[in-house]
């Protein structure tokens, strides 16, 4: 294990390991204080950033933050590292890498080629010495496109996951939220339900219902019920139509074990999904959710800071060529991200690091009622992520998830971002919205009709 020191302002700061430099260089957040790994004051934090900036990227290939023998995520990171792809930046320090990323050598093509040459720890390290504008600017250069039944992640596009949750999974209530979302132009990343109860029979019913709606109205999108991967496998075994295979993941083997998964179980879920061959444009079909603080929450962070743990989860994700990866940034609560400022920074870090590593990143721009955050903070993060080129965000009725009890972006928020930043939905979905008469996008502005599209009039007529 290496030790590092840095002298600045007449004081010499000493750090006993790479993990310690990384943790102390992290911009302040409550979860790192909770873990006892944060810098003790602002001066020590910047000194750690200076020490980190001087560390060669190559060093990350020789000092594992969690031992190779002890953790399957470390083994995945080391064993899948592509030395040839790493070559263009292999001579750089972390600080030099930041400069390189901001410069002209880093463009869409070179960053795509570089991704397999980067480890999560390299991405996390450089993000710690980047400001918000750096995280936006570099992420904006990168495009990660994924395909299943439509195409998500193209430049100039921003998709939404329509999240029609209902407190008791009642079909009519779920359908009402789905229709509301579709009529506000949401749902191109997927229609994805968080079920209230993990009962296999009701999961199967919801999957059949989503499949029925997508087929009836010929919606170019995909469905997901966010249940444990083993439950999805069971549903597939029962012959139920299932598009995307969901799982929450984290950046250490022990944290994943706390979710009841391992790389082997994830592989089984991926294989089961592939066996159905339901993607028409491509076979990206895994849907992963992550979030800073999950490893610490499970007591499985190995003394690492939460942002580094989070970035390691992206190594797990990219192994399975996902359709979407969603950092659920403000869900975990104030003990990990205390306020709007911390949530905003974390969302941008996660988006940047995920994109740099080659992932189709989205963000659940959200907060809970026990965090010091509000709608204004979410507007700031949404706008910044829109500028940064995020693949997708959530879309729910009126920002209020009546099942999960938190606030995320609304159908209207997505339209705000599309209008103010000139973004469009996925191309196949955009064509469907026009064909259905839901809305058209002329001169860069979405124009919505004031009457109900004919295809849905019949459905509403039945309600009397």
């Amino acid at each position, binding site marked *: 294990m290496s030790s590092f020191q840095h002298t600045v302002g007449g004081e010499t700061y000493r750090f006993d390991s790479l993990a310690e430099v990384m943790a102390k260089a992290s911009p302040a957040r409550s979860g790192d204080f909770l873990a006892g790994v944060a810098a003790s004051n602002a001066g020590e934090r910047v000194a750690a950033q200076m020490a980190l900036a001087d560390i060669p990227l190559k060093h990350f290939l020789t000092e594992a933050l969690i031992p190779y023998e002890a953790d399957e995520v470390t083994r995945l990171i080391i064993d899948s590292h592509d030395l040839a792809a790493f070559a263009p930046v292999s001579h750089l320090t972390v600080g030099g890498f930041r400069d390189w990323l901001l410069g002209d050598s880093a463009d869409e093509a070179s960053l795509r080629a570089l991704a397999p040459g980067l480890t999560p720890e390299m991405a996390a390290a450089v993000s710690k010495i980047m400001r918000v504008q750096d995280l936006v600017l570099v992420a904006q250069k990168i495009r990660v496109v994924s395909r299943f039944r439509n195409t998500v992640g193209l430049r100039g596009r921003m998709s939404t996951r329509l999240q029609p*949750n*209902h*407190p*008791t999974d*009642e*079909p*009519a*209530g*779920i*359908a*009402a*939220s*789905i*229709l*509301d979302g579709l009529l*506000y132009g949401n749902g191109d990343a997927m229609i994805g339900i968080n079920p*209230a*109860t*993990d*009962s*296999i*029979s*009701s999961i199967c019913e919801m999957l059949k219902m989503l499949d029925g*709606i997508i087929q*009836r*109205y010929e919606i170019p999108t995909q469905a997901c019920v966010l249940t*444990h991967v*083993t439950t999805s496998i*069971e549903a597939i075994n029962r012959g139920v139509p299932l598009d995307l295979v969901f799982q929450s993941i984290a950046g250490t083997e022990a944290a994943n*074990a*706390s*979710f009841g998964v391992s790389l082997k179980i994830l592989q089984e879920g991926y294989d089961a999904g592939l066996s159905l061959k339901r993607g028409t444009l491509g076979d990206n079909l895994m849907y992963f959710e992550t979030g800073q603080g999950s490893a610490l*929450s*499970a007591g499985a962070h190995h003394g690492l800071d939460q942002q580094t743990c989070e970035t390691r989860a992206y190594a797990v994700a990219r192994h399975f060529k996902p359709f979407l990866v969603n950092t659920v940034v403000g869900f975990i*609560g*104030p*003990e990990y991200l205390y306020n709007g400022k911390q949530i905003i920074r974390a969302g941008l870090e996660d988006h940047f690091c995920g994109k740099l590593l080659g992932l189709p990143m989205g963000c659940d721009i959200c907060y809970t*009622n*026990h965090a010091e955050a509000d*709608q204004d903070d979410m507007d700031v993060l949404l706008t910044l992520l829109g500028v940064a080129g995020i693949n997708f965000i959530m879309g*729910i*009725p*009126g920002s*209020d*998830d*009546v099942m999960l*009890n*938190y*606030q995320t972006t*609304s159908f*209207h928020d997505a*339209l705000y971002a599309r*209008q103010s930043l000139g973004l469009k939905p996925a191309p196949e979905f955009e064509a469907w919205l026009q064909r259905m008469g839901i809305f058209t996008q002329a001169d860069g502005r979405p124009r*919505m009709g*004031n*009457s*109900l599209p004919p295809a*849905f009039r019949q*459905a*509403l007529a039945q309600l009397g």
Partner: protein
Amino acid sequence: MYDDSPLSGASETPWQQLRNLTPARIALGRAGTSMPTRAQLDFQFAHAQARDAVHLPFDHGALAAGLAHQHRQSLLLHSAAKDRDTYLQRPDLGRRLSHESAELLGQHRENNPDGYDLAIVIADGLSALAVHRNALPMVAHIEEQAAAEGWSVAPVSLVSQGRVAVADEVAELLGARMVVILIGERPGLSSPDSLGLYFTYAPKVGLTDAYRNCISNVRQEGLSYAMASHRLLYLMREACRRQLSGVNLKDEAEVPLLAGGVPRENFLLG
């Protein structure tokens, strides 16, 4: 002046009738493509109420009195988080009992060395309001079912500033084979009073969420007490049979319509 009339500049929504199908904030209308004024301010008020619910103190005295009225004993306990501010920033402390509370349970065990089949824990969690409104009727349902199974039940443990995992320590100290904790979930805008049930078989300090089963959203407008206890009983019976709980124990309970009538069907496929 703000309302949904054309005079306000906001547009009418032709699918208003869907609003009686879900508590979600659908068919809000739009101003341009943005949220109209009334919907915007309604949201802000709901958020203000939820913020206030998070900080409502846990009235465990009143709860103990309510349990006594139902002829049930209770134990008043406190987590290691001494106040609300500490609780919000230190979940590790909310998962453990205070030294004094652990001692109290130790003494209880000395007097009741045989232990119990089931321990019931009630904790404020993130919404004391949820516990104040829903805990007593929920406990009555659970105890009724436990009695029918012939299980011995420990006095109800009331934990202030508690998190889910504190139940494991309570149960371990009481010598309970199974534990269920009733805890206030984090308040939502439309649901400041939602109760969560977490069940563990063979509880002990240090177990992760993978060893627990969760039934969430128990409240008047959500999952009924009867439905929640039906699911819980299924989990407990299966757990006893297979000697495990958590992700390997699926909730495959057949769900009869015990309350609330027939679920309304998906109208999009009619």
